[in-house]
């Protein structure tokens, strides 16, 4: 390097570092001047990138809805009876866990928010768990399906896992299918496809033994890569397999593609089950109004007045109905937070203790965590009329009997 470039380098370096530091300072040090009479709640979710779709359907609308409601009602009630408005600090994690981790650090150490709401997705929730633990924040992980929740609860004492694990959903489905087989409404043969990511694999691993135990015969068991957009070949294979139940542990847009392909090729198994996306409010539109009888993950008790009211206000405020799986649970977790704050205030340890042991009234009904996990969940739902109705566990109050065989498309 010549003398000349060196001079330029030094010069540029000084300039860039001062600009950089200046920017960094404003970034780092413009902590919010939050007033003492507000509660600051922070979250980092994916507003761009591949996770933006899921977060934009399940997580963000509920956060916004809840904050709006609470503030419209005068704010969060504190144990002393006073009310404090919520002030929100939100960041975009750009669907990158590295950015997410940094955003959480910022929320905890720079913004010093009173409470941190979780991001969307299993991986994202796991990525921030050690941090939340270190900073002492309770983590109400809603959109995170993991069979390892019992271990995580031991590892991170203030983490709460509210969406069950893959085995639960697989077992629930196996029960539904076994019952149908016993009733003679389908032939006991299952064609199963799954998406090759953590979620799909979890479910498949749960489903294989669960199906075997339930006396079901797996006539097709294939895994396709994330990002597959054409299902014509897979579906024609499924159609040819003679299976009475078609099961796709898929993500949108895969679950939607599967539906459309089945419709266009006139594939009408007795049971048509898809993974994530089946409970989305846009699903009936995607199925061209012929969603009746389609099964999927989750479900709601469509007859519950609380759920009906929740659907109505979500539709009024956000413009679309919520999804019928994790949305209501997300909203319920916020209600739990609201009630816990009213009982014990904002102290993190007290909040965690309250989440762990308290009983809450939410849109889901009376809600209580077991071993820091929400276990009172719906594993299988089915489109019946305008609702994505819960059908399993069949013995839980509010369950509806499944319609099998599904009406033809």
């Amino acid at each position, binding site marked *: 390097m010549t003398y000349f470039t060196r001079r330029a380098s030094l010069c540029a370096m000084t300039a860039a570092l001062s600009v950089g530091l200046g920017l960094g300072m404003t970034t780092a040090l413009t902590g919010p001047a939050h007033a003492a009479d507000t509660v600051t709640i922070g979250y980092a979710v994916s507003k761009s990138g591949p996770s933006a779709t899921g977060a934009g359907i399940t997580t963000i609308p509920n956060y916004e809805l809840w904050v709006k409601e609470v503030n419209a009602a005068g704010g969060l009630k504190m144990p002393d009876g006073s009310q404090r408005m919520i002030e929100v600090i939100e*960041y975009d994690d750009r669907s990158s866990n590295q950015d997410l981790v*940094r955003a959480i650090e910022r929320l905890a150490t720079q913004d010093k928010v009173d409470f941190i709401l979780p991001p969307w997705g299993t991986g994202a929730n796991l990525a921030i768990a050690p941090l939340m633990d270190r900073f002492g924040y309770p983590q109400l992980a809603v959109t995170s399906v993991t069979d390892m929740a019992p271990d995580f609860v031991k590892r991170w004492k203030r983490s709460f896992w509210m969406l069950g694990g893959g085995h639960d959903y697989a077992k629930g489905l196996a029960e539904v299918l076994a019952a149908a087989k016993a009733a003679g409404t389908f032939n006991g043969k299952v064609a199963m496809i799954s998406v090759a990511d953590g979620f799909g694999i979890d479910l498949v691993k749960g489903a294989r033994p669960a199906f075997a135990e339930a006396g079901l015969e797996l006539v097709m068991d294939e895994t396709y890569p994330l990002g597959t957009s054409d299902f014509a070949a897979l579906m024609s294979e499924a159609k040819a397999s003679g299976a009475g139940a078609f099961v796709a542990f898929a993500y949108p847009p895969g679950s939607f593609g599967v539906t459309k392909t089945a419709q266009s090729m006139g594939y009408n198994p007795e049971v048509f089950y898809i993974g994530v996306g089946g409970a989305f409010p846009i699903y009936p539109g995607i199925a061209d109004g012929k969603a009746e009888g389609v099964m999927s993950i989750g479900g709601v008790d469509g007859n519950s007045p609380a759920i009906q009211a929740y659907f109505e206000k979500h539709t009024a405020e956000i413009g679309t109905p919520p999804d019928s799986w994790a949305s209501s649970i997300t909203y319920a977790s916020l209600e739990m937070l609201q009630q816990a704050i009213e009982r014990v205030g904002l102290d993190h340890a007290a909040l965690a203790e309250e989440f762990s042991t308290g009983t809450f009234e939410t849109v889901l009904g009376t809600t209580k965590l077991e071993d820091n996990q929400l276990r009172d969940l719906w594993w299988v739902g089915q489109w019946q009329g305008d609702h994505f109705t819960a059908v399993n566990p069949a013995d839980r109050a509010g369950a509806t009997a499944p319609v099998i065989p599904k009406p033809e498309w």
Partner: protein
Amino acid sequence: MIRIALPLAGLVLLALAPLALSDYGLGLLIGMAGYVTLASSWALFSGHTRYISLATVAFYGTGAYTVAVLNEALPYPLVLLAAGGIGAALALLVGLSTLRLAGVYFVIFTFGLAELVRQLITWYEVTITGTLGRYIFLDITPAQIYWQLLALAALTLALTAWMHRRPLGLALRVIGDDEVVAAHAGINLARVKLVAFTLSATIITLAGAIASPRWVYVEPAIVFNPTVSFLTVIMALLGGANRLWGPLLGAVPLFLLFEYLSVHFPDTYPIFLGALFIAVVFVLPEGVLAGLEKLRLRRRPTTREAKA
């Protein structure tokens, strides 16, 4: 003298920084150290040869994945060693097969490579091991990650500086200007490119391995995020990929700017990002350093003559 003393002083200062900073400040430093390492090691090969590689994330992700697979089986230093070894082996393999490609074909090949690696790992995990998504539970504090990354960044810069003064560095510059002349001057094109590519890829793999404990949960879709490759390229080019300090000068301000935008404009962040990119291409096509140099030249048009 000052050329060694100043960076050394800066390094010491940076190494002490975690003691004074909040966790978030440290998080920022980790991010910066990471991207400085990526951009600098990327430039080690691509800066002079002008082979734009988009395979950064293939190696970065491989490093992270190696840690995820081995972190319970081996002690941490050995895991790092293994990651470096795997990265180097992969780079040799890729290097040997891509040396024929030039220009945009090389760009696209490297992009495809990242996707292929990701798909193959996914397929392997799904069908052979039956697990997808691995956990990294290592007792490594953010400060320790930072120090490791800082050391790696310093090492990369030192290596680059050293290479600039060795035949290898000269050879890379010649290749960037004219491969035909390079060959006729006695430069073994294949060997030079292979050595530089492997060095660069090994460092990138190590960076991925070191940063991975911060993710806890690792899945191909998470670690093979193509944005990393693109950001690396942009940062290096913004600063000036063929200068020693260029990649650093691009990485630090861009990183802070991204952070600033995502904090203050979470909804419209991609729009700002895009507009900024376009602006950089139009206003500073050869990087900040070259831009500054040009500015100085314009002020003192005789500099070059005076120098001669």
